[in-house]
């Protein structure tokens, strides 16, 4: 499967915070040929293992997506909702959504707003808050089956656009694609550490998935991967390769120097980000796991984060995988 297709399949699958099962299916199928073992742990992470030396390295990418949860529904099928993860109400208006119900069935919803010409003149400049937005589910013949606690995501089919992919949950499944590509790339190398590809649950509400896995795995090095904002001002741009977060408290200085040197010496283009405190990614908790885990953070530049039209560049995904697989093999050779 092409990387483009993998990115689109990952983005299209339904995986709200804590309910990532469907994404597991896509990942299992894609990574299976390249790993020795795949399992899920107690909290709901999917972990794929590629056995190598005694050196244990973990790659953490979260596969949950920001989502909504039904909080109330009236007898006409108009539902109210809360958000799981940070969602901007501005991007929700007039979206088609999928609702996964207790009976396992998917039902349809539309996030509505009063037609502008029926609104008061004074409120036309305002975006409805979460308390005012609603999901219209009345079109489903059996909308009464929808219940409080059912999970909702915006229905957006990913597509290609000039070497980029736009989709609803490339944060952080585009990085899951990097992990899968790393697993594939490792076949090129003779020397390989034991790699744990951890596809984590619940990052968007506090990263407890990554924490649990890192505790269990007792790693020599944990590499968290997440998306970061495309920002010309901050010198982070789509198409210029992976972004490495320079030290700061969350990043292991020695490993950072090693990967930076490796990237420079081997002609990998990359960009820098700076982490003055915690990084707001799985790296925060991986570092604190067990008796402490040396941690790196690799970020993928992204536009329009937490909207249904997130954009990443395919070459950044491919180049990130090349950098990491080469670096892992290099560690084996020199140490």
């Amino acid at each position: 499967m092409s990387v483009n297709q993998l990115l689109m399949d990952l983005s299209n699958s339904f995986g709200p915070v804590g309910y990532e099962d469907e994404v597991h299916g896509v990942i299992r199928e894609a990574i299976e040929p390249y790993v020795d073992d795949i399992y899920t742990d107690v909290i709901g992470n999917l972990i794929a293992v590629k056995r190598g030396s005694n050196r244990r390295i973990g790659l953490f990418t979260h596969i949950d997506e920001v989502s909504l949860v039904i909080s109330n529904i009236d007898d006409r099928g108009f539902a109210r909702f809360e958000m799981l993860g940070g969602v901007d109400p501005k991007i929700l208006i007039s979206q088609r959504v999928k609702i996964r119900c207790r009976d396992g069935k998917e039902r349809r919803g539309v996030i509505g707003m009063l037609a502008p010409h029926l609104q008061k003149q004074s409120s036309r400049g305002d975006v409805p808050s979460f308390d005012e937005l609603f999901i219209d589910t009345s079109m489903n013949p059996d909308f009464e089956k929808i219940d409080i606690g059912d999970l909702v995501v915006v229905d957006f089919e990913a597509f290609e656009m000039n070497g980029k992919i736009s989709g609803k949950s490339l944060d952080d499944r585009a990085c899951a694609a990097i992990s899968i590509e790393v697993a594939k790339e490792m076949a090129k190398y003779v020397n390989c550490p034991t790699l744990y590809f951890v596809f984590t649950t619940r990052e968007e509400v506090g990263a407890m998935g990554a924490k649990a896995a890192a505790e269990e795995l007792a790693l020599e090095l944990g590499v968290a991967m997440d998306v970061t904002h495309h920002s010309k001002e901050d010198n982070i741009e789509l198409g210029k390769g992976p972004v490495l977060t320079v030290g700061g408290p969350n990043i292991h200085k020695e490993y950072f120097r090693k990967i930076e040197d490796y990237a420079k010496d081997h002609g990998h283009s990359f960009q820098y980000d700076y982490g003055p405190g915690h990084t707001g990614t799985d790296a925060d908790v991986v570092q604190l796991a067990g008796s402490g885990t040396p941690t790196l953070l690799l970020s993928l530049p992204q536009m329009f984060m937490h909207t249904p039209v997130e954009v990443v560049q395919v070459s950044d995904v491919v180049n990130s995988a090349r950098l990491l697989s080469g670096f892992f093999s290099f560690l084996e050779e020199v140490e």
Partner: protein
Amino acid sequence: MKLERLSRLCELPGISGFEEKVASFIESQIEGKVDKSWKDSVGNLIALKKGNGKSQKRLMLLAHTDEVGLMTKKVNEDGTLSFTNIGGVDPRVLMGKKVLVGDDLIPGVIGFEAIHTQERATLLTTPKMDKLRIYLGYSKREEAQNNHRLGDPVFFSTKYEEVGDFAIAKAFDDRTGCEVLLRVLDDLQSFSLDYDVYFAWVVQEEVGLRGSGIAATQIKPDAALVFENTTAGDNPELPEYRWATSLGKGPVLTFAHNGLVLDKKIFETIVDTARTNSIEFQYKSRIAGGTDAARLARTMSGIPAGVISTPSRYIHSPVSIINTNDFLGVAKLASLLVKEGKVLSR
């Protein structure tokens, strides 16, 4: 799918001034079913179904082919496109959407700054249209300039879908009307009419009712029926007494709207016909909004018209909803009115 042709009509790109693809599709659907058809200088498609000659009167059936959308107006340094609206588009429905740009329908997105970096104070403020951008994957002005012209139309890209008794799509306003006309024409294939019926699929309704008058001038009808799509407003935030119309209550009959009190005789004929044939209907209970009937009243010596609509929730947005039974009710009522011809008797 129950309404296959409607699904195709809704998915066609056709904003005001760029209705060619819709008109061409309709032209392909009426081939062999009409006595004469032509496109005029603004892009209206007009067709004649001749009567048996017993009456010299002419009835005009009208629906508009255009939908609301956007138009590019500037290529920015970073390769994004700025745009303005064509027809009534609320900027609040645009963020986080895929759009199609130009005649070649190049896909792009209208993104928005990530919530993480936005100022809290303006999180719930509607951005001005000119602060929004279409991103097509270009990083430089030149890339965009090589592929796009200023003034390119921008279309919503919603796929049509039926769920239960409902359908979800863009452009129900007024492709439902376009399809009503096509259904009436199909229905007339084995029917002997006493008078001539003209079908007019007109352009530019959304930007000031601009196509209908020109069409009517060519047809010179004695009366007209306008088939529209209209605001439902049966939202949870409004008390029932403020609903303009609601889904599932049947065709919407209009007694008056912006700029026009409709012809009393035609209005009453429509109501009587619905009653006699047990078609459940509803009145549009607000005056807001207008239709091409207002233009017809100002054309020639004033063409009397009736307006029948399919109600739609979230109209003028990329994702609107209709009840398919409401639509079928409009189509049934339309056929009855045309066959009976009472709307022509003065």
